[in-house]
């Protein structure tokens, strides 16, 4: 899975990792791990992140090619 958390953090919210972590109720380490792709957040955390940036979860997180259902 890939994500655009770092992109939206810089472009949309212009906040630091620490500030984002505080807003969604996790540690800065968690935000770092998500941005590096080392951790896939829970649905609840993904929804909170999307709410901070004002985007949908699908805009924030995407399955890598070959990882989802194909018609």
């Amino acid at each position, binding site marked *: 899975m*890939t994500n*655009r958390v*770092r*992109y939206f953090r*810089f*472009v949309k919210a212009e906040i630091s990792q620490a500030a984002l972590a505080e807003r969604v*109720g*996790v*540690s*800065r*380490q*968690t935000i770092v*791990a*998500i941005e*590096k*792709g*080392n*951790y896939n*957040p*829970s649905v609840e*955390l993904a929804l909170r992140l999307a709410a901070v940036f004002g985007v949908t979860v699908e805009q924030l997180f995407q399955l890598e090619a070959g990882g989802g259902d194909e018609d």
Partner: protein
Amino acid sequence: MKTKYSWLNPRTKPVPWISGTLVLLGFLLANGTRSETWWWAILLTGLGAFGPGLLRELGWLRDKDEFQIQASRRAGYHAFLAAGLVSFLWIAFIRSGPRHLKAAEELATFFAALLWFTWLFSSLVNYWGARKTSFRLLLIYGGAWLLFCIASEWMHPLGMLMQSLITVPFFACAWLSRKWPRMTGALLLAASIFFFVLLSRLHQQRGLGLVTSATTMILFIGPLFASGIALMAERVSEERPLAV
């Protein structure tokens, strides 16, 4: 807004400090006085080490977020695997012939060291990644040896300098681990095997028991060996562009 308490990081949680204090206090008090051993102090160490985890599993302590909980559980699983595998190796070894344990406490200490080391290393790799963990561990190793060399030979500058040269490979590997992690991983594995053979012979010459020897190996060679494995196993991460 800055207050007079601003120097105290609001994100600092008290639990690690409390548990760390209990662990340290337990170790320091365990020897007790000359006439009496304060065996109960060891319980403090166990309480400090495992108490917070038990409270978290019971749901009475909620100081970690989902990523930290997952990292802790993964580290616990790794410690379980390591201790489980070694347990069976030990049983097979004991049954392979007549064996005599010098002190039962040594075996418990050995497993405690194995559990603790595996858990700690796995946690660090989860939080920092293999490269950063190996880099910092190697710096700590080199720094600790350097301090030891200075403390033991400070009155003999030439001797101090010669002994300090031993620390150069550690600092070199720390630097190399950032540039060429897999090659450094292979180097560390080779160094682990070398130190294992060297320490085995030293311990044999000094008549140290197998358990004491194994515990020393875990604490001394374990970090080098584990860093080597972690560096070689790390996936090569590709640089992702900021804007997709």
